[in-house]
């Protein structure tokens, strides 16, 4: 059977190094299979976070040959065979051990977002037309690869001011929910730091669910922020009409 070398980060918050492991390669094998082989035969204490190994839970995020990927969906046969495959933990989160990082920051950010609030008098008849757009956002499996690759978090470490693409996707799913009555636009601008995003689209490039994060979530949200805070005409129009368009829709 063919063999390949996996060069895996071993270490924790205090430091570490890349260690080489020889792994036999079977047809259709993915990087996570190779990591399991290492656990089962070479290093039983190799820390890897994973659950379903079917691309549905978003647990096994790591950086394979420098690219943020789900290891369960990264096939060995699509990687160059002549060099070791380098597997690193996600760079933007604090290391716990080996490939496992501390992603708890994401869960704290999530708590800041007001939940779905049905508009008063909603009759729960919803057209598929209105559902289609939001369902894209609800495909998110929370692998946090978008958070990891986003340079605002990765290079500039703005975790205090900036919520990151995952949570813009979540807010988009709420804001564009046909029956939602809450307004999160001010929150987006201030607490969630939407303005820090400079739409360089790396989040979209890495999304394993192919959500068009930048074009369908972030930019439409930026336009909504413009509606409320930067566009004098709409702001004036809004003032003259009194209640927001959103509340009008309920009637």
């Amino acid at each position, binding site marked *: 059977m063919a063999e390949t070398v996996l060069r895996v980060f071993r270490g924790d918050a205090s430091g570490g190094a890349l260690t080489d492991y020889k792994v036999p390669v079977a047809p259709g094998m993915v990087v996570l299979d190779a990591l399991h082989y290492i656990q089962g035969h070479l290093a039983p204490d190799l820390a890897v976070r994973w*659950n379903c190994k*079917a691309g549905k839970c978003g647990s096994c995020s790591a950086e394979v040959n420098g690219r943020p990927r789900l290891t369960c969906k990264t096939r060995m046969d699509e990687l160059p065979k002549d060099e070791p495959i380098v597997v690193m933990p996600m760079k933007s989160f604090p290391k716990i051990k080996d490939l496992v990082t501390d992603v708890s920051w994401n869960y704290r950010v999530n708590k800041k977002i007001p939940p779905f609030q049905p508009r008063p008098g909603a009759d729960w008849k919803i057209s598929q037309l209105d559902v289609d757009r939001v369902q894209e956002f609800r495909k998110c499996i929370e692998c946090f690869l978008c958070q990891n690759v986003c340079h605002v978090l990765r290079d500039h470490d703005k975790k205090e001011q900036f919520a990151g693409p995952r949570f813009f996707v979540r807010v988009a799913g709420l804001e564009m929910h046909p029956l939602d009555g809450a307004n999160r636009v001010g929150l987006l601008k201030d607490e969630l730091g939407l303005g820090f995003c400079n739409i360089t689209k790396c989040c979209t490039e890495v999304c394993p669910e192919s959500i068009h994060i930048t074009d369908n979530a972030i930019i439409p949200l930026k336009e909504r922020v413009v509606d409320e805070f930067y566009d004098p005409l709409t702001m004036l129009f809004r003032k003259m009409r009194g209640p927001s368009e959103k509340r009008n829709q309920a009637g």
Partner: protein
Amino acid sequence: MTTNYEVREHDVLIIGAGGAGLRAAIEALAQGASVGVVCKSLLGKAHTVMAEGGIAAAMANVDPADNWKVHFRDTMSGGKFLNNWRMAQLHALEAPDRVRELEQWGALFDRTENGAILQRAFGGHTFKRLCHVGDRTGLELIRTLQDRGVQQGVDCYMECTVTRLLVENGRFAGAFAYWRENGRFIVFKAKAVVIATGGIGKAWSVTSNSWEYTGDGMALAYEAGAELMDMEFVQFHPTGMVWPPGVQGILVTEAVRGEGGILRNKLGERFMEKYDPKRMELSTRDVVARSIYTEVREGRGTEHGGAYLDISHKPAEYVKKKLPSMYHQFKELADVDITKEPMEVGPTCHYMMGGIRVEAETGQSSMPGIFAAGECAAGLHGANRLGGNSLSDLLVFGRRAGMAAAALAKQTAYSSLDNAQMQNAERELLAPFSNKGESPYAIHRDLQTVMQSLVGIYRNAEDLERALNELQMFKARAAAATVEGSRMYNPGWHLVGELKSMLIIAEAVTKSAMARTESRGAHSRIDYPDLDKAWGQKHNIIVQENGEVVRRELPIPPMPDDLKEVLAAQQ
């Protein structure tokens, strides 16, 4: 000694953060209880995310003739009448409300023309009944419950494993656990516990289940003195991926067949005509799984030992819209474009119908203070579960268990915790660091091989006997298993505890399977191929006695006349 441990107090402790655990947590919170949810993984990663097809609920949005009675009848006949009839009734009655509730919490299902929740056909369901979101219904469900729970104020202990339930004066008092991240111990004082830890698929080698499915909750309840029931009924889903080897077992949703997928053997024959000409591909899972297995065994299997499942006669855009994750799964993992060519599929270990024996109304086990809901509880599905009945099970009985646990907690005070039990739990956890045995991974692989080959779809006395002997040897090996490294996020160490759970449950399954000398639902004995009337009247019960797995029998309580009438109608 207690002072050495981190101690947390909650009225209601919930183990497991899948659909059932989160629904229980939301309900217990709504009743005013303080709630702690402990889960082995991160929040939102539970096995529920993998549920694809939908939630079965007789909402009659697509087929107006549907109602709870038909759903009840379908569930009972799918379960070969071994179901707890009261659970089947409550489930059929309450599922529609639970679905509407999800929608009110923000879930967005696919819609009908007039804006109602769309429902699709599924195996064993008379009518189009499965409320769905493409083929990622479980994700929608868990995300909705997760957001709801977080906003209502659930305290969540992520990546934390409970290894023992603490018992005082014959009732539940607390739980001993460790943080996976750093290996430190934590003790929960609680008045009631809801176990919602799912199934045991990881004891088999070909399975659709995630690593978490190691039977922990069932083993915890068993060790605390609760009864397990119907453990021989392990569902093999007919359609898992068979090729390439790395993806073997990954689920191919029943929705493929619900949307019109056709099964063929290598000769191109639509073989379900032979096995169930009436329902064809949408027969119950036990029947379809056995049919595929039989085709392969008799030499009509595909190149890699499965059957062909073909949906390519439907328009490509439709397939991509209704089965997006199947499309991507095959494209990325198997280089197969399902809109153009057939998939290769074969049976994969999928679901445990048996589990902790519970009261229908409350989900309380035979041990006071210990509740269970979802896959780890037994009763609703009888001898075979219908697709779509699992997500509704989580919601209906998760809510009921949460409510009952909170009610019990209101009338109960915290018990003091017994140091000896905690010290034992600690000693047991630390033993692998000083043991001189083998790696737990090797034992796990051997266990999977034995369960797969000897306690699979078809069983016989000889195989089961051999399996039992093997299990005894595995137990000895597991007790001596050793681990390398430190207590910091050490998967080898974690596996030792899970191995213990799997061995208990595997033994319970094998003993029950050996006793049931008939074939019923998911339990097929080659040496007893027919239904046995006497066995149709009783459950297998498993309890711990003097540290041994002991089997008993329990008669099924008689069904009230009104339900009998419901069953008799239109039969």
